[in-house]
Every structure is written in C-alpha cells, then in structure tokens.
C-alpha cells in the first residue's frame, strides 16, 4: 500500500512519519472542505468524472475486487458489463435487507436497551438518521465516495463532486467503480451503497444514547456523513489510497469503513459528552430485551444483504460470504454467551444478541475473503474480545459508551479487519491472494485517525451551534417527553 501518487506501484509499504500523515489529513480535509464549499454552489462545478479518470488502469482496479464480483471465477458474466438481471435482483434485495438493518433493526436493538423513558427518542434517532443521510447521499456523499475525481491526486482522498445530485447516473450507460466494471445498473449500486452510509452514523448513536440533543443529532449526521463517512468510503472502495494501494487494504463489506469508523466516532462522542446523569448509580437496565432480540435478529438477517450483497452479484462469492457471516455470528454469540456464563453465572439474552452482533461486525471485512474455518475462528475471537471490551474496558477507563458502540463495533471491527489479513484465502477470492496484517493495520490506523479527529471537530461545531446535551431536567424526565413530547402508554 502506498500513501501518495508517486510510489503507487511501490510495495515497500507506507512510512508512518508525522509528515506524510499531516499531508494526508490535510489533503483529505481540503477535499472535504471543497465538498462543503461546492455544495452551496453545486451547479457551478461541472466536472466530467468519466473523462480520463486515471484510476481505471491503476492498481485501484483491485479495489472493487475487494468489494466483490469482478475478479472471481464465480461471476463470469461481466465481460462487457451489461447489467445481469440475476445480479440486479440480488442487489435490489440486498438494498432492502440493509435498509431493514437500520429501520427497524438497529432502532429496536438500541431501543430495547435504553430506559423506558428514552425509547421513542432512541428509535427516532435511527429513523431520522436514515432520512437525513438519504438526502445527503443524493446531494453529495455518493459523489464524494464513489465518484472519480478528475484530479488523480485528489482522487486518492475523495471522489469530487462530479456525481453530485447523481449527475451522470443513467438508466443504461455501463459504469465503473474504482476502475472496475459493474454488472448492475448504477441506480442500484448507488442505492445499495446508500444503505451502508445510513447505518454507519446510526451505529454511533449507541454511544451517546439517552443524552444527545435531537437537533445536534441532525447537524452531526449531515456533517459526519459528508466529512467522515464519504471520504473513508472513497479511500477503501472508491479507488482511494487504501483500497488502491499495493497490496490493497482488504475490506469486503465495511470493517474499516463502517464499523471501526462508527465505533471510534462513538468513543469520541462518549468522551466529549460525558456520562449520563446518574451513571453507575441509577438503575439503567435495558427496559425491553424483546425489542433488542428483534433488533439483533433483523440485523442478522439484514446482514446477509450487507455481506453477501457486497459481492455485487448473485454468485458463489455471495454464497460463501453468507455462509461465513452465519458461521461467525453463531460462533461469536455462543462464545460471548459462554464467557458471560462463566463470569455472571447465567447466560443471558442480551449476551446472545450482543455476541451475534459482535460476530457480524467482525466477519464483515472478512466475509468474502476467508473460508468458513477462518470465519469460525474470527467469530470465536470476536465473541470473547467484544465481551471483554464491553464489560471491562468501559469500566477501566470509566467512559459511558451507553450501548457499547465502541466495545462492539470498534473492537469487533478491529478484530475482523486485522484477522482478514491473516485468514484471507485465495481459493475463496483471488483478490485476497496478497494479504498482510501490516496493510490491514494501516487501514485501521488511517480510519481511526481521520474519524477521531473529524468527529471531534464536528462535535465542537454542534456544541457551539445546537448544543450537545439535553438539559438535566430533560434527562431526568426522559428524552421522549423532553425532546419529542411523546410517551409510551402501556396502561
């Protein structure tokens, strides 16, 4: 993997000097800044993204292989990149499945874990994030993530605004992502990726549950989607400097882009916001684990779209990704359950659900690269690892990551991203032939650095505009009444 244009083909790896880092961050910040500026006067900037996009013949071509079908023998029908109705059918379905993960899946997973007085506010967060990100994605984020920047140097960091408002997305023209052909219509590809952009900030909400202002949430989501999610997605999947490196960072369905990203952002939120009122003293037991069970189940089912859908085709790669997902998830759920059984004397539904999610997270980057035995091992490690993180790490460092966004998604994502570099099997996916723990670590570090800094800055923006926390009284009374003027009426 290489950090900048000059040594693109160079295999000696990245040199982690402060200087290149600074340069890189500055570059991306610039890109993001441009995006923001350009959004106001979007119509003015009329870049033609396809024209001479240098990515097409660059090493970046292996990135989409990381994201799926093209390079695998199981998907031979993309020679001239005509849309295939079977591939399209599966991707339409996958899009529905991934949306199902956020609403109502994640909404219920989180909603069941808060106190009763905050349940409506908690589910409203997932729902509102879904709406906000949809529009931001349409307006600019899709372009930033999956556009091809006319300036090849900038293209390492962001995709430009050539596809803002879906300019250039057509009904019939074949298109490429990061230089590789895709066998589905671009509208479908855009929609599929949108659902990933939706769930990522929604995951963060687990960290600031029960105290974040709704207005702050809306602003945070807009900014975070533009300045954190979209560029990182470009780095890894859009032909940017991580996915386009040699060897490329392997991230099949979003270990770095989605989970490490959301987990670390959550940690930053938890640290900046501080603990909930009464944390460690009041009873904050999950009020309805049936909701949490429904949520975990829909996450599981929907994750088939997430991981198997990341094959971007209906083929054996999708099949093995689905199998890996299932096996790692079951293994992690059972591992967490047993760990908890030993420590707490009783196995619990929350543990099963949490373990399952930990497994889903960890297998995400690996699902299209490893074989089932690799998935099993990743699942077992993630189950125990995330259990320890959720139970001990939080206690150790005394931060209040309310619903363990970092403990499950951050740690689980790290475990999965790193182990993908260990277990990738070329018999499953030729694109995983060259894999290295080192490269994977670079991917993790880059993601962590950017998301940590940018999330912090975005929180500061919110702090001085909308404010961050609800009033003390509002927190006591419950966010449902305080923020939304609504309540559950169970009598």
């Amino acid at each position, binding site marked *: 993997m290489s950090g900048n244009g000059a040594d693109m083909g160079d295999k000696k790896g990245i040199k982690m000097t402060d200087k290149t880092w600074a340069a890189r961050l500055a570059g991306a910040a610039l890109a993001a800044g441009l995006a923001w500026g350009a959004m106001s006067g979007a119509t003015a900037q009329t870049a033609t993204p396809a024209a001479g996009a240098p990515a097409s013949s660059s090493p970046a071509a292996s990135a989409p292989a990381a994201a799926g079908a093209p390079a695998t023998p199981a998907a031979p029908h993309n020679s001239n990149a005509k849309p295939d109705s079977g591939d399209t059918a599966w991707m339409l379905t996958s899009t529905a499945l991934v949306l199902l993960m956020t609403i109502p899946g994640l909404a219920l997973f989180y909603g069941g874990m808060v106190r009763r007085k905050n349940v409506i506010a908690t589910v409203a967060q997932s729902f509102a994030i879904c709406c906000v990100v949809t529009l931001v994605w349409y307006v600019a984020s899709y372009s930033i993530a999956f556009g091809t920047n006319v300036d090849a140097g900038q293209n390492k960091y962001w995709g430009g605004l050539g596809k803002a408002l879906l300019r250039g997305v057509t009904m019939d023209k074949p298109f490429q992502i990061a230089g590789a052909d895709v066998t589905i219509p671009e509208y479908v590809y855009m929609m599929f990726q949108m659902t990933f952009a939706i769930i990522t900030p929604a995951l963060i909400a687990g960290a600031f549950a029960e105290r974040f202002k709704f207005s702050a949430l809306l602003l945070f989501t807009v900014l975070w989607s533009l300045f954190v999610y979209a560029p990182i997605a470009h780095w890894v999947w859009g032909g940017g400097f991580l996915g386009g490196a040699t060897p490329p960072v392997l991230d099949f369905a979003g270990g770095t882009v989605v989970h490490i990203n959301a987990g670390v952002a959550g940690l930053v939120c938890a640290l900046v916001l501080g603990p909930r009122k009464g944390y460690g003293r009041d*009873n*904050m*037991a*999950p009020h309805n684990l049936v909701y949490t069970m429904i949520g975990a189940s829909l996450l599981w089912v929907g994750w088939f779209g997430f991981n198997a859908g990341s094959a971007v085709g209906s083929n054996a790669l999708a099949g093995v990704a689905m199998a890996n997902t299932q096996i790692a998830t079951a293994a992690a759920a059972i591992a967490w359950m047993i760990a908890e059984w030993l420590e*707490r004397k009783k196995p*619990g539904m*929350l*543990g099963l659900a*949490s373990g399952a999610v930990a497994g889903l997270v960890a297998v995400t980057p690996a699902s299209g690269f490893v074989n089932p035995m690799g998935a099993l091992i990743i699942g077992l490690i993630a189950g125990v690892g995330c259990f320890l993180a*959720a*139970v*001990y790490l*939080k*206690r150790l460092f005394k931060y209040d990551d309310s619903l*363990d966004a970092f*403990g499950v998604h951050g740690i689980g994502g790290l475990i999965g991203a790193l182990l993908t570099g260990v277990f990738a099997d070329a018999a499953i996916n030729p694109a995983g032939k060259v894999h290295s723990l080192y490269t994977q670590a670079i991917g993790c570090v880059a993601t962590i650095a950017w998301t940590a800094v940018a999330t912090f800055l975005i929180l500061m923006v919110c702090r001085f505009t909308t404010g961050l926390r609800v009033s003390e009284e509002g927190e006591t009374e419950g966010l449902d009444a305080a923020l939304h003027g609504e309540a559950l009426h169970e009598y």
Partner: protein
Amino acid sequence: MKLILAVIKPFKLDDVREALTRAGVEGMTVSEVKGYGRQKGQTEIYRGAEYAVNFVPKVQIVTVVDDAIAPAAVDAIKGAAGSGKIGDGKVFVLDVEQALRIRTGETGSAAL
C-alpha cells in the same frame, strides 16, 4: 368497618381471594406493587453493569370489611398467603369511618 391492607406474594393472589370469599368478604381491590423488606431482590447484570433490584414484586390487597368479620378475614389471608418463606408479606388493619356504594348510595356495612 376496617380496612385490611395486605401485601402478599403475587402467585398467592388466587388462593387469598378464595379464602377471603369463604370468610365472607365480597369485594376487594388489588394492585401490583413492589416490596422492600427482609426478602432481597434479584440482581440483574447487563454487560457488566450490575443492578441490585432492591424491590421484589408483590400484590397489595385492600378490602374494607365489617368489624365483625375483620378477624376472620385476617386469618383467611394468613392461612392462604403463608408459604413459610421469607417475604410472605404483611397484613395491616386500619379503621374506616365511612363507606359508600356509588351505584346505590348505600353507606356503612351495606355498602361493602
């Protein structure tokens, strides 16, 4: 008239209701409550956070009876609600000044 306030274990409710009926009590009002006493509550642990639930679920029965049958009613509760285990509950007796049946306007014992 006396107001008998009994706090018992939830699953004993049907037994107590039947015993009271046998003792001549014709009406009662029941609510779900949480009790604090010698019997300690469960501890719930969620992802390492431990919540000692100080309260245990109980059922509270309020019945107003004629002075004459008050002792029998108390005995009936005692007989039916006892399991010999900690947390069986309490019976308290208070004096009632007046009773009224809303439907008919009857007062005193006739209202019960």
